[in-house]
């Protein structure tokens, strides 16, 4: 039986992993859920679940920025899909934002593979979950504030926009700045103080 997505939010001092108590609770619940399935389970099951979870989160640990990663139970071949039906697989995604402190989001689901038999990507969901909580949003705000201090022209150019994503990083190439959102997208290029939309057709 599939229960839908389970989300955990955990916090830690900057650059550190959440404490063992909080992670232990997550590991315990993951183990309980995974126990119901025989195949395509998370490869966290071997050994001590808490240690396996910590090894996984090491991949999104940092001193600054946003990182995301996923571990899953694998997929099936297209032949399998044709002969049977889409298979179920377990997916655990993590996204972490590191600014004033480190905030981690874990998203778990027992879900179906896509029509090619691949496990779905849940990292986007973990990233979205960073936005839906005031405490994790604070970290995104802090990252964006640092970016605007580095590139005041970017803040100025974004000011007229009513709705816009969080910008947490930017790459400069010559006179052009490519601001990067918390979803790892680049919807604009900043050229000479003007925003050039890249994400949709523009008038010009």
């Amino acid at each position: 039986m599939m229960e839908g997505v389970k989300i955990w939010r955990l916090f830690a001092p900057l650059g550190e992993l959440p404490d063992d108590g909080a992670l232990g609770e997550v590991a315990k619940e993951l183990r309980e859920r995974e126990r119901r399935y025989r195949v395509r389970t998370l490869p966290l099951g071997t050994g001590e679940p808490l240690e396996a979870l910590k090894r996984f989160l090491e991949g999104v640990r940092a001193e600054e920025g946003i990182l995301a990663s996923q571990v899953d139970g694998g997929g099936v071949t297209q032949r399998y899909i044709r002969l049977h039906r889409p298979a179920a697989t377990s997916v655990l995604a993590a996204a972490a934002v590191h600014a004033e402190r480190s905030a981690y989001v874990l998203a778990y689901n027992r879900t179906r593979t896509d029509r090619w038999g691949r496990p779905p990507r849940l990292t986007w969901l973990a990233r979205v979950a960073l936005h839906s909580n005031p405490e994790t949003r604070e970290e995104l705000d802090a990252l964006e504030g640092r970016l605007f201090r580095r590139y005041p022209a970017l803040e100025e150019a974004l000011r007229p926009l009513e709705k816009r994503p969080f910008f947490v990083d930017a790459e400069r190439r010559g006179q052009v700045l490519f601001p990067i959102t918390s979803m790892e997208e680049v919807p604009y290029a900043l050229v000479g103080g003007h925003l050039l939309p890249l994400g949709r057709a523009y008038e010009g």
Partner: protein
Amino acid sequence: MKDETLVKLLRKRTLLGALPPKAIRALLRAEGDPKEVARLADLAHLASL
């Protein structure tokens, strides 16, 4: 960030996604000349029509 990574991000859910990675790499090699960016955006716009 490596050019390859930036190209990947630039092709994600943008009009530039309609262009081959080679074209976007050419932009980055041109060190982001504003005229080149505008030209590329025009190309991407046309490619999306």
